[in-house]
């Protein structure tokens, strides 16, 4: 199963490198939204709750672009049929798609988080960076697990670009709450990891539940 997932992931990364369809669009979207917030809020710098909310809502909205395109090549070029004809465990497709989305989110955040720090954030990111990286890691796992599931659900529908946000965003509300709450104390002027363990615990639980749920149901999503 892992070898198949690696083959699919390798193919997906190769396609993304060649087409540059998802990561540049997601990155540009986050940067644009940060600039819009910069002018829309008419404030030079944010901190605490507001900064945390802006950071995570923007990342979640950017993930819609990646999720919408996750099965693009499979849908448009018959990749799903190719997979169904091969003697592979279908769960390997979910593993590959979730891993691909996770890597895309990491690539976006490598640009988006420093840009957020420069454009909007009052306090420096430096001191809280290790804790913030942990929150980003667990948040990305949750988004990737749910995103790959939703992308597969929407792949064969005509209005997939409408269905993806309608399904994805409500499912990601717990991720948003946990990530924003865990990040909020890290972005205060007097930064400190307040209640971090509690929110990371909730986020980890969410990740485990959705990984297990996805593994359990993914096979049935590809049924005729």
């Amino acid at each position: 199963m892992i070898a198949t997932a690696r083959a699919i992931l390798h193919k997906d990364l190769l396609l993304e490198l060649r087409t540059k369809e998802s990561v540049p669009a997601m990155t540009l979207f986050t940067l644009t939204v940060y600039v819009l917030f910069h002018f829309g809020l008419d404030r030079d710098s944010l901190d605490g709750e507001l900064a945390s909310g802006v950071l995570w809502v923007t990342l979640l909205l950017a993930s819609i672009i990646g999720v919408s395109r996750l099965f693009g090549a499979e849908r448009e070029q018959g990749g799903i049929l190719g997979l169904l004809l091969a003697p592979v465990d279908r769960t390997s497709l979910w593993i590959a798609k979730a891993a691909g989305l996770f890597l895309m989110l990491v690539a976006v955040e490598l640009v988006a988080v420093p840009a957020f720090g420069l454009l909007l954030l009052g306090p420096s990111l430096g001191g809280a960076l290790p804790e913030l990286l942990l929150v980003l890691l667990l948040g990305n796992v949750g988004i990737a697990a749910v995103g790959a599931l939703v992308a597969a659900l929407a792949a064969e529908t005509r209005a997939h670009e409408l269905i993806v946000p309608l399904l994805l965003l409500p499912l990601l509300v717990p991720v948003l709450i946990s990530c924003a709450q865990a990040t909020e104390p890290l972005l205060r002027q007097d930064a400190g990891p307040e209640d971090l363990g509690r929110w990371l615990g909730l986020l980890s639980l969410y990740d485990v539940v959705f990984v297990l749920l996805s593994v359990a149901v993914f096979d049935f999503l590809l049924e005729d």
Partner: protein
Amino acid sequence: MAAIELDVLERRYGERVALAGVSVRVERGQTLAVLGANGAGKTTLLQVLAGLLRPHGGRAVVLGAELPAERWKLPGRVGYLGHEPLLYRELSARENLRYHARLHGVEGARVEVVLAAVGMERRADDPVRELSRGMVQRVAVARAVLHEPELLLLDEPRANLDPAGAEQLEPLIGKPSGRTRVLVSHDVRGAQAEADIVLRLEQGRPAPEGQEAYA
């Protein structure tokens, strides 16, 4: 044991009947030609035989697998060449075939063998989007036979090929391949000439005896 046994097979899309009352028995090594006008149900029949669509009525046994219950027995044993080449346009022919080889657990060396067999060694590293339709069809044939399937399901396999190209692919997908084949074609004479059994479909149902499928 027959390679394919269909007994009053039925398949619907919602309320619309795509296949009904289709019965046929194909022994191993035989070729079944499926003829019919556009929309007759030929492609649907191929997809049911490949295990991609589940039958809604009747009985369908393919390579000993009772469909749909034993559909899991089919992947890796069927070579499917449909209207779409099932190739990624941004990848080269070689990259596409290597990817499918990994999915099927086939050695990488086999990729070079099939590339040579379809005459695509020289253009193997070009992206599929840069290939002509005939070349794409050759690569699609290579993909379909890469894993040496027991059953070949071929929908217009010679479409877009010049006569020399079609001849070159004969050992892979023609009668000389020795494989059980289901061949969908609009070339009635050609299909009849290479078929052991002919099934004529008319709006999803077997055409009455003596009636031409294209009448």
